[in-house]
């Protein structure tokens, strides 16, 4: 076996030296009734050629965004990834290394993660960022738990503008510990209803959580919400961080804990993972943060160096008293994000955000001009690169026709659909050229009009 360098002869010699008849002699203290008498019933070994053939066949059963025209977003966004992201993150010194517990031989990972923290904190306009969480949903759940640790209060007000999967994950993580209450969406504006928010605020509220931009693409008015919640922790979830190339960072709006999903920043769709959870906070709360933090320090010669810091919050030191149970995180994905942000830079991320905004608004204008298609929120002037539309139901053959043409016009949202119309959340990015958007419009027009 090519992954096992010990030869049969090596093994024989070692066993003889150890005074053992065979390998089983080394584990004879395992109760005999637990020993497997026969080989495992798994397939025979495959060669590299066979593996490629096997997985090519499987890959061909999937639809990919490479051979379709997709406007699906809803938490997973198809953005351009510069070639250098794959090349640099594919250096095996990065991807075959362990968690950087030995800083002297991990400065590459450590400095890259320090830079990741710096750029994420900058993007979110927050004081500090950690070195990553599993994904945006889990990061949000941990943010809520952190708000509970800080406030010692137990009610959480969750906006209905938060991705349903994120809300479900928060529910899983807080069941039996915290009370979750929902803040409805203003039916006309597509953002969290401020009047209900004010009504629901009371002394037991640990935090208010909104998504920014929200699940329907609408831009929550964070500064307004901040004004309404002066004595409550404000938590935001950003699943589309390219928006922060254009929009104010949550920190600028006074948010206390801002988390999110970073896959938009250089990570491919991969059927939902691995992605990367982003986690930022005000500095005063840093000791309540979950996850790893990389800090600047110096070595014995006073040279600049980096290491994992504030570990006393973490499970390997603090065990049951740790701020979280997280150990392995999504380091390599964080590295990809760091490379992506360094590549795009100040101007590039701004341009990506502007193009997303422009393309989405162009598509919105043209789509809602089609007979039988209306906007989901009539008073919604502000969205980023996603928006909701309602499509009259009698034209439901539209979806099968689009599928035939390998067009996926958006995420069908059953919760918002009615007996007369199907609701769709449409995502448009910098990958959608004017020609692609026009093709979608013309195809839809033919059916609808």
């Amino acid at each position: 076996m090519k992954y096992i360098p010990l030869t049969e002869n090596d093994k024989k010699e070692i066993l003889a030296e150890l005074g053992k008849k065979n390998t089983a002699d080394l584990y004879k203290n395992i109760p005999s009734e637990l020993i497997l008498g026969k080989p495992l019933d798994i397939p025979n070994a495959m060669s590299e050629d066979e593996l490629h053939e096997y997985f090519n066949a499987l890959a061909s059963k999937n639809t990919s965004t490479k051979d379709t025209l997709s406007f699906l977003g809803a938490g997973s966004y198809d953005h351009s990834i510069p070639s250098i992201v794959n090349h640099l993150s594919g250096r095996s010194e990065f991807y075959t290394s362990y968690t950087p517990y030995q800083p002297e031989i991990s400065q590459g990972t450590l400095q890259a993660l320090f830079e990741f923290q710096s750029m994420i904190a900058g993007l979110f306009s927050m004081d500090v960022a950690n070195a990553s969480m599993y994904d945006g949903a889990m990061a949000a759940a941990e943010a809520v738990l952190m708000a509970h640790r800080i406030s010692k209060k137990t009610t959480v007000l969750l906006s209905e503008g938060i991705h349903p999967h994120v809300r479900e994950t928060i529910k899983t993580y807080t069941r039996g510990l915290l009370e979750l209450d929902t803040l409805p969406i203003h039916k006309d504006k597509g953002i969290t209803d401020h009047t209900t928010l004010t009504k629901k605020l009371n002394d037991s509220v640990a935090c208010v959580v909104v998504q920014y931009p929200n699940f329907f693409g609408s831009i929550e008015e964070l500064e307004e919400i901040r004004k309404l919640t002066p004595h409550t922790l404000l938590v935001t979830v950003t699943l589309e961080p390219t928006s922060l190339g254009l929009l104010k960072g949550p920190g600028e709006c006074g948010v206390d804990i801002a988390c999110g999903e970073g896959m938009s920043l250089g990570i491919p769709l991969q059927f939902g993972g691995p992605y990367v959870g982003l986690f930022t906070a005000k500095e005063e709360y840093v000791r309540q943060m979950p996850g790893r933090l990389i800090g600047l320090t110096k070595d014995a010669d006073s040279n600049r160096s980096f290491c994992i810091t504030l570990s006393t919050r973490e499970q390997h030191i603090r065990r049951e008293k740790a701020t979280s149970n997280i150990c392995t995180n999504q380091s390599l994905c964080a590295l990809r994000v760091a490379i992506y942000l360094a590549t795009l830079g100040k101007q590039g991320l701004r341009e990506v955000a502007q193009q997303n905004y422009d393309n989405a608004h162009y598509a919105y204008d043209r789509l809602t001009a089609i007979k039988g298609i209306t906007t989901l929120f009539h008073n919604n002037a502000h969205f980023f690169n996603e928006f909701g539309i309602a499509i009259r139901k009698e034209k439901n053959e539209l979806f099968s026709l689009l599928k035939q043409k390998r067009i996926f016009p958006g995420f069908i949202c059953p919760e918002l659909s009615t007996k007369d119309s199907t609701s769709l959340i449409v995502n448009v990015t910098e990958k959608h050229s004017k020609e692609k958007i026009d093709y979608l419009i013309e195809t839809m027009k033919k059916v609808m009009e």
Partner: protein
Amino acid sequence: MITAKLQEPLLSELSQAGKQAYTLRKSSIKEYHKNLDGKFTRTDVDLPELSEVEVVRHFTRLSTKNYGVDTGMYPLGSCTMKYNPKINEDIAAKEGLAYSHPLFGEEQAQGSLEIIYTLQELLKTITGFSHITLNPMAGAQAELAGILITRAYFEDKKEKRHTILVPDLAHGTNPASAALGNFKTQEIKCGKQGILEASLVEQYMTNDIAALMITNPNTLGLFEEEILKITKIVHDHGGLVYMDGANLNALLGITKIAPMGVDLMHINLHKTFSTPHGGGGPGAGPLCVNEKLSPYLPIPLVTKNGTTYSLITETKKSIGRMGLFQGNFGILVRALTYILSLGNENIKKVSEAAIIAANYIKEHLKNDYHLPYTKDCMHECIFTDKFQKENGVTTLNIAKSLLDYGIHPPTVYFPLVVSGALMIEPTECESKRNLDHFISVMKELAADAKTNPDKLKNAPRETPVKRVDEVNAVKNLVLTWKKIIS
């Protein structure tokens, strides 16, 4: 490489206004963003500006300061730093897999669902469990899922149990996961032989204990010989047994897990099944359970009806969703590739070679380093710094000295119950020549500890940076480059 020792500037220091490392399509669409209300827009994005070649050199230079499995031996105990096959990366990068949107729908994702389903079936065969979820994105998240399932199970039975029994040898994630699931933890000590004693478990078992979390082989590298008695005692008291599968690399094809009396177990694909550690993730932590716990598994579930695969997003008793989509799919692809590369003819050889290598090291170093538990080990062995301490040399000094020989140190100071532990897990991926080299270096260090202890105390010398001051990092907390400038 010389660049490894040169200080690499921060991106913020390399930044120069007006540079760019990207190209974007020229857009012919009108600039709608100019109409966006100024109350929403920011004036500046705090990101660096570099050209492409500068970004490439920066990260390439950083990579030379890193040590990976591809660089050399990585005998980190309980971390299973085995070789990460290159073909795994190529397979995961296939367009049909890497560019599949998680919400395209079942019909458009039959290939991905078949991959998940096939891996589920193989892992069930390997472990002997009847049910599994591949959703958890790391071992610790699987532990949390297991703990939440335990809670749901007892709530369903209307039994109030508040405590999880955790051996002192357990990984830190075990008690942390129990606490995150709102359980109290009760520590239980391992016996003189380095294993958990059934008689002690009996003393601790009450109707308040929901589950015992046990690692097998344990973190001393020893098989829990009394496992059958222990699981029976726990079950007799109505409790569940959770097994931390971090050390599964010792058991492949040798023993099945479920028949030990284990009710739930997680697997770390980034340990046993060769997916890269990536400098600390992403990993994946499949969770196996038996029949009676299957109704509580997190959603979504992947099933097969006839020849069609489907994604179940709602079940009556599920503990719920644990993340945005269906886990770290890209990691699952790599693990499946690995298992299929091994096949039935090789899978047992992995564990056997890992066990042989660990015992070989144990045998050869036992006169140079104190061996607290002398019996045959499984895939890892534990030494301490007891002999070296006589000359003021500690485990930390030994670890840092290994760096100067181009070897990654073993896991140190863990498990906590062994003072000055050096936990060595060579894995199946080292040649005899490499094992002999490691042994000779360790012997040399043991000799130096007597004759020239300062050599060890002042290590490392040859690394990109000298010994890093971790205390200073806490005292003067700097977590972003903005803090340096200000």
